[in-house]
């Protein structure tokens, strides 16, 4: 069944039809919430809350936009509310929560985990809106018009946010690289000095 058919059934109070929609979009909504709040447990709660809100207000959905976009908007609003209420902006990322299960050797897994950590630490420096734009653009593959429909504002503003977010990410990742090089070169320098 297509989305509009499932939505029409859900609007008549058909719970299984709505659960079908939930199964279809739960991964995307969870991923979006996770990117925004950077906390697995909170992301789960927020995704559930978003689906609950969608079910409660489904009769107000007029099918003028895509159901997926409408759902994204609800989820992002939930995340914004959470971030505002908990004042989570700028909190450090708990790197222990990430468990990157790779298919390669343990060394490759370790490298991937390290990259993951660096990326999420850099993402944490972004404002919530830019994080949302990055996720919608790169993970969900939305166009700037669709992003503006989800987040409000214009397509031009979404593009500017995206460009700014990428530049900020690049800056933080580069800085960390430089920092890493400095830290790694330190023992060598110490060895050289001691030899003298």
């Amino acid at each position, binding site marked *: 069944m297509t989305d509009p058919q499932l939505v029409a059934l859900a609007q008549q109070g058909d719970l299984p039809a709505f659960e079908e929609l939930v199964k279809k979009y739960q991964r995307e909504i969870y991923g979006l919430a996770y990117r925004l709040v950077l906390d697995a447990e909170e992301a789960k709660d927020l995704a559930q809350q978003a*689906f609950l809100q969608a079910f409660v207000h489904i009769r107000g959905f007029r099918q003028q936009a895509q159901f997926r976009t409408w759902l994204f908007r609800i989820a992002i609003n939930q995340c914004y509310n959470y971030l505002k209420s908990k004042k989570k902006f700028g909190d450090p990322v708990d790197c222990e929560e990430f468990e990157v299960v790779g298919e390669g050797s343990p060394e490759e897994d370790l490298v991937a985990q390290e990259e993951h950590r660096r990326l999420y630490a850099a993402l944490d420096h972004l404002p919530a809106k830019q994080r949302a734009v990055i996720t919608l653009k790169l993970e969900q593959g939305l166009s700037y018009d669709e992003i503006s429909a989800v987040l409000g504002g214009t397509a031009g503003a979404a593009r500017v946010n995206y460009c700014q977010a990428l530049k900020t990410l690049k800056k933080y990742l580069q800085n960390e690289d430089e920092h890493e090089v400095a830290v790694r070169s330190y023992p060598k320098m110490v060895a050289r000095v001691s030899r003298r």
Partner: protein
Amino acid sequence: MKWRCALIQRWLPAYPDGDLPSFWRERIKSHLKGCPDCREELAGLEEVVRAVKTAPAPEPEPAFWDNFNRELHLKLAQSVPAPAPSRFFRMPYYLVGAPALAVLLLWVAFGYLKPDQPVLAPVPQVAKQEKALEQMAPPPQVAKQEKALEKMAPTPQAAAPVPEATGSVVLVTKNGQELSPDDDPDTLLGDLDTTLAGMSEKEKEDFLKQVRQHEKDGSCIRKSSTIFSA
């Protein structure tokens, strides 16, 4: 960095996916051919995009989704979809305000069609009377008279409801009925200000004596004495 590079690099992050106006796409393309700095910048940005795309949010285990769906099912079963919003609220916001505007316009038009009934109540002329009184009574004497009135008025009478500070003294009988100026022309209980304004100092004292006499008789009590506080 040249100013041209700075201009190009503003749009560079959006260049790889081609979601740019054709003017900028062509301009960036031609600029990149001859500018190694901007090519390097673009390579850095593409590296960031690759890093984000290859590091999606961690995929939870299947047990997580079972738990997620079970919890959500319970929550959904307990909730009921809200009714669809009425057509009135589906109207554009400027149309929702239209009825209020119509009522306002009708009210104003009705007021103009009936010129004998003023739309707004006339402003009371108390302010003018107060000014006249201030001119007649200098401040030190006013203070004395006020003290004298306060001595005359014991505390229980102050509990009576106080009228608005209109600069007038209202005398009421013990039954609580207000005495109109027509009841006793000697005391002139209604609009005291105008009466006092036309009196000399001696006449004022006589008048206050009459008031005291009325209070002693018990025929009436003083309801308020805001005359000199104005």
